[in-house]
């Protein structure tokens, strides 16, 4: 039995964000009353807030395979990634100044690495599916002077999983720490192991916006890049948003329970789209690894189509999807992920299904997209190519 739909039908941009899960909303409202106090104080309401915060921390720690004292709550996934990268570069200053980041990391990881002073950022290349090869990592670390390696658990634009286990074990042999951005994976797929620092974002799994996860192994040589502050184990500054954190933990538990059955269902829906769309649309290429991928993401590029026009027409049909094409980006440059894969960057669409996505909505999408593509091509004078 599939779960009730979490998002409106036709909302296929789950990799960007999800609406809050009903149970998380209830937990949030209850925690606004019960968890308002300063958890560091010594009175009844403070102890109540402390218990709620500790409980949320234990829940998240259990799911990601960490000790509770290794888990801190950040104010976003981006903040968690920034503090992970800058703090590990600082703690490992004497061991190495090369920051090795995969070419397909989320831009917040790439920007954070470039913001580290007196360090060299080197990218690790990927194959046509967007996957990092452990052999490439091995070659690059052989030059020494490596502060850390950063590889995401799975790619946010094409859904390809990265071989975190293999990369982690070859890094462990050389005592080099690994940062894993698991924003697309938590609540949707198995949590990777072998990381030194793991980051994630609660709104991706149906928790509230404004809660990130920063998990730092006690053995990792991480030092805060920020001024001293006692909150969240000295890792995240400021008073923790306990009600949001409680809701985030409840949402993650629910997502984890649900995905045991929902992942297989979503995988068969995306599998269907992967075969049907290129069969119905000429000059369309499905991107990302065919099997070693997240269950809910399908990405394709279609020649002679402007991504912007495509999104507008799909919106008119009630579909919300995203695109990595340059005409859609703020900077008018194509997605660095698509470029690194050597993929066609124009006419790009990412379809990311929310939990509970209905087969009928997916079928309707597959029925209307070919006509929309044909119309956009016609309007560009490319109908006969």
């Amino acid at each position: 039995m599939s779960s009730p739909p979490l998002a409106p039908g036709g909302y296929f941009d789950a990799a960007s964000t999800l609406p809050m899960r009903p149970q998380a909303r209830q937990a949030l409202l209850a925690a606004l009353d019960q968890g308002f106090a300063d958890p560091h104080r010594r009175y009844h309401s403070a102890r109540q807030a402390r218990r709620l915060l500790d409980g949320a921390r234990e829940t998240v720690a259990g799911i990601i395979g960490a000790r509770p004292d290794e888990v801190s709550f950040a104010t976003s996934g981006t903040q968690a990634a920034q503090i992970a990268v800058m703090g590990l570069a600082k703690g490992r200053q004497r061991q190495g100044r090369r920051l090795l980041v995969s070419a397909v990391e989320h831009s917040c990881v790439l920007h954070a690495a470039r913001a580290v002073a007196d360090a060299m950022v080197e990218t690790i290349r990927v194959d046509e599916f967007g996957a990092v090869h452990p052999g490439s990592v091995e070659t690059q670390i052989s030059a020494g002077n490596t502060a850390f390696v950063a590889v995401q658990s799975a790619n946010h634009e094409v859904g390809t999983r990265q071989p975190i286990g293999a990369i982690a074990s070859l890094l462990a042999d050389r005592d080099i720490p690994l940062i894993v951005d698991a924003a697309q994976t938590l609540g949707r797929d198995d949590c990777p192991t072998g990381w030194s620092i793991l980051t994630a974002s609660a709104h991706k799994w149906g928790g509230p916006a404004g809660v990130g996860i920063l998990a730092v192994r006690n053995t990792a040589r991480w030092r805060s890049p920020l001024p001293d502050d006692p909150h969240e184990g000295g890792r995240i500054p400021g008073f923790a948003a306990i009600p949001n954190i409680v809701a985030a933990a409840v949402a993650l538990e629910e997502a984890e329970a649900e995905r045991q059955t929902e992942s297989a269902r979503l995988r068969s829906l995306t599998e269907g789209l992967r075969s049907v769309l290129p069969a119905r649309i000429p000059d369309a290429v499905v991107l990302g690894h065919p099997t070693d991928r997240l269950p809910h993401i399908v990405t394709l590029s279609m020649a002679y189509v402007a991504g912007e026009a495509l999104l507008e027409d799909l919106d008119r049909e009630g579909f919300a999807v995203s695109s990595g094409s340059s005409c859609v980006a703020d900077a008018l440059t194509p997605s660095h992920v698509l470029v690194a894969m050597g993929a066609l960057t124009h006419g790009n669409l990412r379809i990311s299904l929310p939990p509970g996505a209905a087969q009928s909505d997916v079928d309707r999408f597959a029925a209307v997209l070919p006509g929309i593509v044909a119309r956009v091509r016609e309007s560009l004078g490319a109908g006969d190519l």
Partner: protein
Amino acid sequence: MTVPAPYDLLLDERGALCPMPIIALARASKQSPEATILLLADDPAAMSDVPAWCAMRSRVLVWTGIANDDQGQAFLVAPAPDNEP
């Protein structure tokens, strides 16, 4: 710009945004399947999209370089050799 091989057609798509340079390349390739084409483009997507389109349509990207006056990129695109599928 020293193009390392002769070409039959010049397509100056500088100033055109994606996907227009690729559409122009595809149209010229369809009209003159045997022609070697020199495409000039300054849209940032062309650097990725010309090689990707060539792979998709079994054309050969013979050479890329900087266009005249440093204004954009030049791509030399040839038909696939006859003996290849």
